[in-house]
């Protein structure tokens, strides 16, 4: 069992934890957190696989770097939707 494989297997475990959270938890903020955990798991598998060969593969590195920024942006977008939903659900308290 190599180090890269270990990281890959734990990445899959993280993906599973996140997937369970997305499916099982009703609270939207926690759901967003779960999606993030899912994403981190995918990134880990990607990076671990990139280093499993003789020479490290830099294309997955670049893709994960891109993916992290897009994941942050997507999370912020989702959170702003949550804020909006929350504001619409109790309009009388805001006024």
């Amino acid at each position, binding site marked *: 069992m190599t180090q890269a494989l270990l990281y890959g297997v734990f990445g899959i475990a993280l993906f599973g934890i996140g997937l369970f959270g997305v499916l099982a938890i009703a609270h939207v903020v926690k759901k967003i957190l779960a999606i993030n955990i899912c994403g981190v798991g995918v990134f880990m598998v990607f990076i671990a696989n990139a280093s499993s060969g003789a020479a490290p593969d830099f294309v997955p590195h670049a893709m994960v770097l891109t993916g992290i920024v897009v994941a942050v942006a997507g999370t912020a977008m989702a959170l702003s939707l*949550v804020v909006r939903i929350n504001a619409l659900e109790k309009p009388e308290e805001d006024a």
Partner: protein
Amino acid sequence: MFNNMTLSDSAKQEADLPGCVLLIVGMVVVAACFFLAMSLVQFQPTDQPLVTLVASNLEQSGVENPVTAVLLNFRSYDTLLEVAVLLIVALAVMPFSLQDTRLPFIKVSEPIERSLVLEAFLRWLLPAIVVTSGYLLWTGAALPGGAFQAGALLAGAGILLLLAGHHSFNFNALAARLLLVVGLAMFLLVGAGVVLSSGIALAYPVAMAGTLILVIEVAATITIAAVLVLLFCALQIEPLGPQPNRVEKEKHL
């Protein structure tokens, strides 16, 4: 603000799943992960064509760091679209206000709560962060680093500045809008400009590739930092520091 959001708010309409369903979902997820892990164990990377492709073309990319070469030369469409995604999210999250467009980008005022430790710390830290960010950007050509790392660091400086409470950012200002679009604009400009010399969009001429990549990266760093700070600002219901709107409302009452 998410600390103040009661956890029952969203849960009251859609309650958590019953225990037996949770058990089934859990078992399915565990089974799927086990299957994935097994296929990962059995996966044998026989040959990696991309490794040799990147290594053999690195000299033409204009940079020495293979990750930067992939990001901004070999697969620059990815990065172009990523900067576009950042701009779209910024547009979606941004609190638009036509009245604020003529106000300055950075507003300085007296904070409600002063944190002496944070203020004193920031005086030392902020210049260091800016310099380090510039170093990361520059060193990205040869070593790990580049636009994303530099932009994230710079955004951290901006958020620390917000937390200190003396400054607040108005992203409707013209200067802020320019900061938000400069990355994508520069990327498109360079990408379209190289058509004149090479005939293909985003295919930089070898002699100028290093310079063009640096120009794009500087612009992308600024945009990434601005967008990340905007995301932080936009997700605050209770703004830090002075709250002019609230004060005005109270005056009217």
